């Protein structure tokens, strides 16, 4: 009679108001779109657990505000070329369907951009965001993914919350009524419990249960719906790990996590101290973590990956059962934090890169290795830059340092050095343009360049001495 469409598509929110909850997110997105392109960041990153309406909301907004949506999702390949093709499409083509010229680029599940198959994908997205003429909206489950680091600074973040049980119940009830099915309360509760705030999976479950049936008991539901493996975010992973009551439970947390053992190690290093308060418990937990670390080191050394399971055992279960004196600490609610080590590393990346570039400049100029430049040259440069801005400016010019490098060397003295540096550059340029002018003028007359430079004027002389210094 009628074509079967999956309920998740059939009951997909058509209008903004159909999207359950997420009021904050709605407002933020709509406001951002209104003021585009007068916004601080040209792209939005919607993040939150799966099935809460990130993509649906964008689609609903596009429909209601008459935008054409250019989608690029996980099933497309997202290499550099693919993304660049989209840009071309977005900036030129005019829609046949909606007549509107307004467009949004929606990039679904950017955390799924593979580093290998989609080589250069993230960089291409970054470049796209930097010079886009169209609003870009991205979605991700886990914005803390290492891969997404380049995007984090250029995107406005919008959080989507997990749906509450009541919200989910209302939606599911509505679907039940529409499909004319009688869903027992306990079955509905079971579906909601299982979905962990993921409405899409709940609707799928509902459809699986009631496909061609009108009544289902809880027992049948239990058998039909097998437990699913879910990817927990780092915070949820830690919470589950610490509060697990059995060793196998603690071990399972890693399998159901977005974290791998290496990243989990860093998260634990950061957060054990927040969870446990007793000193002996703390020592035990960190001892377990350090044992795990030893195993991981041994894996690299020996290449024997059989050791990995032991590393994971002590890292998860070992840490989870370290609280012997204060076992209640296991269940304490604490705010976990992102590993400082990673934040520091990414913060100092720019500085480390500049220093490296500077070392290369110095090294090639005075014919030493970069490590010699670091140990034997930079300390003296620091002293000069901090105490004698005039000389410092000359050195900077000779080495060809950038302003950022001068800033790093001179510290609080930087404004002075940069001022001298700019003046110096200006006079040099003037001098050069004068000499070239004269050279060209004279060459027509006498074809002699030597006379030109010897006849150089007063202003020229000053810069000449400079030039000779620079040549030194």
């Amino acid at each position, binding site marked *: 009679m009628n074509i079967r469409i999956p309920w998740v598509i059939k009951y997909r929110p058509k209008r903004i108001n159909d999207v359950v909850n997420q009021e904050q997110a709605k407002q933020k997105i709509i406001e951002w779109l209104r003021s585009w392109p007068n916004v601080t960041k040209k792209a939005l990153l919607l993040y939150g657990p799966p099935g809460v309406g990130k993509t649906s909301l964008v689609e609903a907004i596009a429909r209601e505000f008459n935008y054409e949506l250019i989608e690029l999702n996980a099933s497309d390949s997202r290499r550099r070329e693919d993304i660049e093709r989209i840009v071309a499409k977005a900036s030129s083509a005019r829609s046949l369907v909606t007549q509107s010229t307004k467009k949004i680029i929606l990039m679904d599940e950017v955390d799924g951009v593979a580093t290998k198959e989609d080589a250069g994908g993230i960089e291409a997205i970054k470049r796209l965001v930097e010079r886009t003429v169209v609003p870009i909206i991205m979605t991700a489950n886990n914005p803390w993914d290492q891969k997404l680091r380049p995007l984090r600074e250029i995107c406005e973040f919008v959080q989507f919350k997990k749906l509450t049980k009541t919200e989910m119940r209302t939606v599911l009830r509505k679907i039940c009524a529409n499909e004319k099915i009688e869903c027992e309360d306990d079955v509905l509760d079971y579906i909601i419990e299982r979905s962990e705030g993921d409405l899409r999976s709940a609707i799928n479950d509902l459809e699986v249960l009631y496909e061609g049936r009108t009544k289902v008991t809880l027992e049948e539901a239990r058998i039909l719906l097998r437990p699913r493996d879910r990817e927990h975010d780092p915070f949820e992973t830690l919470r589950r790990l610490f509060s697990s009551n059995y060793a196998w439970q603690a071990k399972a947390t890693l399998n159901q996590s977005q974290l791998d053992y290496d990243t989990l190690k860093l998260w634990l290093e950061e957060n054990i101290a927040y969870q446990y308060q007793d000193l002996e418990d703390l020592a035990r937990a960190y001892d377990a973590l350090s044992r795990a670390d030893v195993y991981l080191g041994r894996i690299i050394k020996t290449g024997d990956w059989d050791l990995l399971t032991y590393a994971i055992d002590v890292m998860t*279960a070992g840490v989870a059962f370290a609280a012997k004196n204060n076992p209640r600490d296991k269940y304490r609610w604490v705010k976990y934090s992102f590993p400082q080590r990673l934040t520091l590393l990414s913060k100092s990346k720019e500085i480390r890169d500049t220093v490296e570039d500077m070392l290369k400049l110095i090294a090639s100029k005075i014919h030493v290795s970069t490590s010699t430049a670091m140990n034997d040259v930079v300390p003296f440069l620091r002293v000069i830059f901090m105490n004698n801005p005039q000389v410092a400016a000359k050195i900077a010019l000779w080495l060809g340092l950038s302003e950022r490098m001068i800033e790093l060397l001179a510290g609080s003295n930087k404004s002075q050095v940069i001022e001298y540096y700019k003046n110096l550059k200006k006079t040099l340029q003037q001098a050069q343009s004068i000499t070239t002018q004269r050279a060209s003028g004279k060459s027509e007359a006498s074809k002699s360049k030597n006379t030109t430079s010897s006849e150089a004027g007063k202003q020229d002389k000053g810069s000449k001495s400079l030039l000779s210094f620079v040549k030194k």
Partner: protein
Amino acid sequence: MLTFGLSGSDVLKQMHRELFSADLKIPEDIRVLLADYIGEVQFRLVEGADDEIQLTALLAKMALLGARLSKQ
């Protein structure tokens, strides 16, 4: 090991598998402790230590733990 032709690490792997099963009724923190012991022995075997000696040492340690447990 001699009768079945198993290597030391085969035995260890089997021990480790049993360790986290529900059939073995021991406190959870002891499981972790044992996992660490077994892992250590596994590493030593990879490094070239002698199967017999390492496993005997592990057994002795386990016996000690068992004795302590039954006393409690």
